[in-house]
């Protein structure tokens, strides 16, 4: 892995406890939040986090599974994507 920064997006209908639930999973996987922003866009709750992982052999697959599992629980869509996805598309 070149760098280990991920963009985590949570999109869906707002519910009590989403932030707590999501950050709990992140803490369990030792994923650090570098930056966080939250807004309501087109009536949808939208939370975007820049997260960082220090571990060399981070188990991305299990983390993604746990996060999307949490998303299903709250009825929201959670994606974990490498930062480069967005950096390459929008920055030269």
């Amino acid at each position, binding site marked *: *892995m070149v760098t280990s920064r991920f*963009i985590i*997006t949570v*999109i869906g209908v707002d519910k009590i406890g989403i932030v707590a639930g999501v950050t709990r999973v992140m803490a369990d996987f030792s994923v650090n939040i570098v*930056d966080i*922003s939250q*807004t309501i*866009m087109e009536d949808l709750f*939208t939370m*975007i986090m*820049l997260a960082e992982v220090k571990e060399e052999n981070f188990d*991305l*697959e299990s983390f*993604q599974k746990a996060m999307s599992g949490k998303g299903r629980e709250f009825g929201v*869509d959670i*994606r*974990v*994507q*490498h*930062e*480069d*996805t*967005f*950096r*390459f*598309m*929008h*920055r030269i």
Partner: protein
Amino acid sequence: MLIHPEEILETIKMVSSENLDIRTVTMGISLLDCSNPDIDVLNKNIYNKITEYAHELVKTTDEVQSLYGIPIINKRISVTPIALVAESCNVADLTSVAQTLDRAAEDVGIDFIGGFSALVQKGMTPGDLRLINSIPKALSGTRKVCSSINVATTKAGINMDAVALMGRVVRETARLTADQGGIGCAKLVVFANAPDDNPFMAGAFHGIGEPECSINVGVSGPGVVNSAVRALEDPSLGDISECIKKTAFKITRMGEVIGKEVARRLDANFGVLDLSLAPTPAVGDSVAAILEAMGLESCGTHGTTAALALLNDAVKKGGSMASSSVGGLSGAFIPVSEDEGMVRAVRRGSLSLDKLEAMTSVCSVGLDMIAVPGDTPASTISAIIADEMAIGMINKKTTAVRIIPAPGKIVGDMVEFGGLLGTAPVMPVNGYSSEKFIARGGRIPAPIQALTN
């Protein structure tokens, strides 16, 4: 945050609702060192080489897909044209080589393997002829093998003997796969100026100037371009071109990051990024829809060729700014059966075979996934191929024909292929004969454009 939330959401929307995907990661493998006069040894060499190089392809591609969160739809392999690899085998029927490719493809878990191919633009060797004659059986007896024959180049002209032969081969391939609507023909392409590094099927093969192993990536996204154009408020055509360019830029950047990472992990050369707007049967993921978004009532009406020229050029410009590795076909594809908007246009009578032919002179490929009546004479199919090859030869560009004479079907019928191949409406062909012209054979000489040295 380094990246603006709106940009992040734009990317996510492209994937979740506009069908942005990496259409294919295609591994090119040279089989030149597999050659052997004994066909059993040849088959063994081919199987071993493909499985050795590609056994991690699917796993690696899946890992990269989840790392970046962008779907990679197909994993494919292209190999050295088999006519070259099998030239020294004096065996009339090369079906067993196609079966070997199929088995290797199955065992490494990929979707398609291309390269049951021959390059015969100036003439055919005995090996080329054996391969071409084996195509109908090879394609009807395998599931994942794709075949392509290059019959023309700007430098060599058009090999009309090969064109005549291919008309008969297309007919025979349709006959042998009649129980599935002639699907064998969907895996068979006739080319002019075929690129050596195209990752898209059915025309992918690993050209002779290519390295031992390379990764070529095909990115697609008609749905994204369609949405971007439709979001513009009363744009001029210049605004539309600018918008398509920017969108193509973003899509290409995405493909590049993925291609490089896959190549790095597999220790292969990163070859080309092919940015082609390849439609899928999904509603809105359509090149016809983009043309209609520009203001045409229905794709195929007057103005369609101009609109397509604008689209194709803007895609190339955006792509070439985004990556130094843009290659392959890179432009807009107009396969009829795979594009829901094209199918609708044919059914409502606004899009004809003749208009499609005109459109191919300004876009990246050719007459693609077109169903014609099952009783279309082989010479008419050859003549359709010849016309298309002439457009490629004179305009120094790739053109191709992938045509399906659907067995037992007549004009107006629909042929269902399923999956990405979609549904093809059977289109009418010109009823007047081309028989005598095609029977003349020989070669249409290289045009004056060839004399560039």
